[in-house]
């Protein structure tokens, strides 16, 4: 039978489904909630005691010991930065804060960033190439003024971990704010809808997940005002400003939620033409929606 568990974590709604007759299904689903809590406690930039916050606070003070979890996710983020030539960049924290996203999103008001954050981003910019990660020593070093945000990639990574964990017990699906991954024994695929970014009561498409993942990046989700100007959370590292590409929303299909999350963000930042080439080069499929609502696809996006 199908078991479902819903909770909130990482400032978003999380749901997990497990198809099993085991009486331990509830225990397994509770373990997923604990996993999200552990990752958030270690990788959130909004938790002062998290490993990521400690690393950011120690920028400019040389190599710092970090947990294996932080090391793994940071390594994935730097790998994605290299593959995208810096279009995906985890070191945009200061730009995010300067844009006004300097606290958990539900606390972001319309007053924008604090003056110290605006000065900070002007001085540091972004720079994934300046992060030193030492696998042998289990340390990371940030130059002074540089900060890391692992928000999106940490969410996708946690979804992957949760789906793999549940998949040991049966077919499973995990959804964290639209980052969705199926796991477990192959079988009938899970149908997942793609929400219309301009009308949340409508769906644009339905994709089937069978041991793969889907994620969506959009400038329509987390928006706020700064100095009367509309802002959003997708910072283009090339400008240090919120993205102004020709795309409003991108949904990506990839083998893992981590990859889908990265591809959706990179394609949105690159724009339709270059972005679709990026996705095709990686064998991922994307559905792109521009600001007028026009759709285009690349890769093997299901018709």
């Amino acid at each position, binding site marked *: 039978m199908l078991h479902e568990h819903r909770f909130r974590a990482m400032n978003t709604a999380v749901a997990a489904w497990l*198809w099993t007759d085991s009486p331990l299904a509830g225990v397994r689903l509770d373990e997923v909630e604990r996993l999200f809590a552990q990752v958030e406690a270690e990788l959130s930039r909004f938790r002062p005691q998290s490993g990521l916050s400690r690393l950011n606070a120690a920028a400019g003070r040389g190599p710092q010991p970090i947990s294996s979890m932080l090391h793994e996710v940071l390594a994935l983020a730097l790998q994605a930065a290299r593959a995208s030539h810096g279009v995906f960049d985890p070191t945009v924290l200061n730009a995010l804060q300067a844009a006004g996203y300097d606290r958990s999103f539900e606390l972001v008001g319309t007053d924008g960033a604090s003056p110290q954050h605006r000065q900070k981003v002007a001085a540091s910019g972004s720079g994934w190439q300046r992060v030193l990660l030492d696998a042998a020593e289990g340390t990371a070093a940030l130059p002074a003024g540089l900060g890391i945000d692992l928000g999106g990639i940490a*969410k996708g990574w946690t979804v992957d971990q949760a789906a793999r964990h549940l998949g040991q017990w049966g*077919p499973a699906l995990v959804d964290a704010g639209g980052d969705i991954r199926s796991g477990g024994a192959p079988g009938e695929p899970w*149908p997942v809808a793609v*929400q219309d970014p301009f009308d949340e009561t409508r769906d644009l498409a339905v994709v089937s997940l069978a041991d793969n993942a889907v994620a*969506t990046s*959009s400038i329509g989700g987390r928006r706020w005002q700064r100095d009367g100007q509309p802002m959003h959370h997708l910072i283009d590292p090339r400008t240090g400003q919120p993205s102004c590409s020709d795309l409003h929303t991108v949904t990506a299909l990839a083998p893992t939620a981590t990859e889908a999350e990265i591809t959706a963000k990179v394609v949105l930042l690159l724009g339709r033409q270059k972005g679709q080439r990026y996705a095709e080069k990686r064998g991922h499929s994307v559905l792109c929606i521009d600001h007028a609502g026009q759709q285009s696809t690349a890769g093997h996006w299901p018709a």
Partner: protein
Amino acid sequence: MTEQVRPRSGSGLPSSGGGMAWKSGVLSASLGVVLLGWGLLARDSVADNTIPAPLQPQIIVVRVPVQRWPGSGQAVVASQSLAQRQPAAITMAPLPQKPVFQQPITRTRGS
């Protein structure tokens, strides 16, 4: 008084040496036909024993009770050949791992 019975010489046919030869010929011919027929029958019988007719297995498809998963709409049907004279071991097709959802279970959206 003893009456000496004389053997009868036939049924009115002339009893001569040429008549005996005719009878021997008929008997020989009859015997030949019988032996020939026996031989042919024996040969057919041997042929029947050495070249058996091919056995066609009798294929009977057994439809076992249809098993459905809740909401799946998928049937599982197994078949078996009775000519194999095997015990009623039925090979089941792989069962679906979970039901087929008719509607999306969740939605991806920008966050």
